[in-house]
């Protein structure tokens, strides 16, 4: 009797799983495996030439980076040439690359002065490093900003005062609208000449704030996107923090009060330790969302000005979809995936060690 039930379960188990398994196989597992395979080839979207296995060449092209010293230009006396402003004249990095066959395929990423010498950083794909730096910078700024702001929001609307649930709802509204649509609205607000944000800043600072170009300057574009994302996503993380706050038993607060803790001490020594899991979750989730940054950048700046908002995801789409280099884009995706894996495993590890302690 029991054995019959078991074999019946075998049948129904596979039957009920089959639609999901079929879909997962076609749309997740096969692409994942194909992407890994193509990352070792020179596959293109449309090409008359057959696809060839090229080993780790894509990965080399993505990651290859070199620091090279750049020599000053010497005059006939063997002294460095100096321009009118008193600066030493150096060879152009582009010429150094061209002159040296070792640096074939390399392009200039950036150059700088240090220890009295001039250096150039050259990479086979400077855009990858540009995207990596931008994305990392973005994650490093957005994660603490969103974490702190959404925690403060959650504390504010977790109070038992009249009308507080209305504010909860209001703060969450930006999170349910679609990113591309609200990005366009923010482009309107960021408008450098007549945009409302510039006008508002000028009025409330009595003219101390000048007009900022926001999205149209390499110095402020990433910042403008960060500000937009804070506006867009804080409500979502506020709700997650609220869930965590409501799991803290009421008597914990009472106990802190009896011990004479002021609200700030209660927050620091009682609330935050209790929110540990929620905080880890918010940090990891917001960093993964940060690494995936694409939509708002594609709408607002397309990666510009001067590559200052190019992100990893955007670089992948540019190479794979717009430039049709499927093999190369697959390799970038794999590198990208490794970042996500590291982040997620860190999360799981922290959670596990926490469980051991308990």
């Amino acid at each position, binding site marked *: 009797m029991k054995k019959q039930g078991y074999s019946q379960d075998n049948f129904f188990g*596979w039957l009920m799983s089959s639609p999901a*398994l079929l879909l997962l196989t076609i749309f997740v597992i096969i*692409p*994942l495996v194909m992407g890994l395979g193509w990352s070792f080839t020179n596959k293109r979207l449309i090409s008359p030439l057959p696809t060839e296995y090229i080993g780790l060449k894509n990965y080399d092209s993505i990651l290859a980076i070199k620091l090279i010293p750049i020599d000053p230009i010497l005059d006939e006396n063997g002294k460095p040439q100096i321009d009118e402003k008193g600066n030493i004249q150096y060879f152009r990095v582009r010429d150094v690359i061209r002159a040296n066959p070792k640096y074939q395929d390399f392009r200039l990423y950036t150059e700088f002065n240090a220890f009295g010498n001039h250096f150039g950083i050259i990479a086979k794909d400077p855009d990858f490093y540009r995207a990596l730096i931008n994305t990392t910078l973005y994650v490093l700024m957005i994660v603490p900003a969103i974490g702190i702001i959404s925690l403060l929001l959650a504390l504010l*609307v977790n109070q038992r005062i009249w009308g507080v649930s209305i504010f909860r709802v*209001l703060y969450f*509204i930006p999170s349910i609208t*679609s990113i591309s649509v609200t990005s366009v609205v923010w482009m309107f607000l960021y408008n450098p000449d007549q945009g409302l944000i510039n006008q508002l800043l000028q009025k409330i600072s009595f003219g101390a704030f000048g007009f900022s170009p926001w999205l149209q300057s390499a110095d402020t574009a990433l910042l403008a996107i960060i500000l937009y994302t804070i506006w867009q996503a804080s409500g979502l993380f506020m709700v997650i923090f*609220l869930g965590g706050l409501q799991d803290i038993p009421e008597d914990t607060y009472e106990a802190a009060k009896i011990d004479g803790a002021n609200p700030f001490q209660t927050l620091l020594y009682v609330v935050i330790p209790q929110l540990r899991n929620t905080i880890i979750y918010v940090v990891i989730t917001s960093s993964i969302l940060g690494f995936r940054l694409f939509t708002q950048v594609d709408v607002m700046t397309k990666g510009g000005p001067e590559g200052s908002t190019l992100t990893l995801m955007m670089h992948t789409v540019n190479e794979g979809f717009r430039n049709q280099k*499927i093999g190369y884009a697959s390799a970038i995706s794999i590198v990208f995936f490794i970042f996500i894996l590291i982040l997620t495993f860190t999360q799981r590890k922290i959670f596990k060690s926490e469980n051991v302690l308990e």
Partner: protein
Amino acid sequence: MRKQVVDNSMRHNQKARFQKKTLLFLDYFVMILLAFFFLFPFWVMAVGSLKPEKLIFDDLKSVIWAFIPRDVNLENYAYIFNRIPFLTYFKNTIVIVLTTIVSGLFVNSMIAYALARLRWKGKKFIIGAILALTIVPLETIVVPLLMVSNKLPWFNGATSWLDSLHVQIIPFICDAFSIYLFYQSFIQIPKDYDEAAIMDGANPFVIFSRVIIPLARSTFVAVAIIQLIFLWSAYLWPLMVTRTEAFRPLTLGVTYLYNMDIRWGPILAYATLSNLPSVLLFIVFQKGFLRSIASGSVKG
């Protein structure tokens, strides 16, 4: 002496009450200020969409007028209905989001049921695989997924899925994270419930639909809402797979309009109309929304 003590304590009480009131006032002040920060873009958007083009920017200069509607007319709305296929975009988004969510609920909950409550060979391996797949973001497979979709046949004889509605639906029906949420919820339901049904000779399908689904209704709502938020914002994938206006969703139409000509009136009208459904839906069902987000997140 005694009187003075009473007096002091009264004064102390008064002071405490005053402090409490100030604090409360400060609370509301900060909350209202924040509400302004989160909502002013929507207000300015809606007000601007009702103004003639020239007035939109003129009014921005005085700041206050940017928040007050005047010369109200619906020309910008007429523009987006007459000059661009707004209704097509709108219909596409609704069809894509609804079909994906409804079929997703069905497919994902069914496998989660099999994994959580049936005993069969291979299920341990599949649970592990699905847990692993929850960390694969769409972005990492988007390029090969495009190639796969380009090679799939369809009922009408087409040999590619590109530029269609189903290419925006079928790949997203099955979602590892949704399966995981269902699984978490189903293993918490006491076994006695299905044992009683097994005694009555019910097969797993019957138990699933008559016992489990009613008991886990709140999980279904949570999964639907979380999916809704992500699907409503879908941008990257539609950008890659659509070629013609007939299949574009709302999220792409706005950039099409922006690139066509930069007149802000119609763009703001477009944004107002496309934000309206999700905002209304949220305000009506806000309790369910907020609870679902909180419950769908921190589970380790």
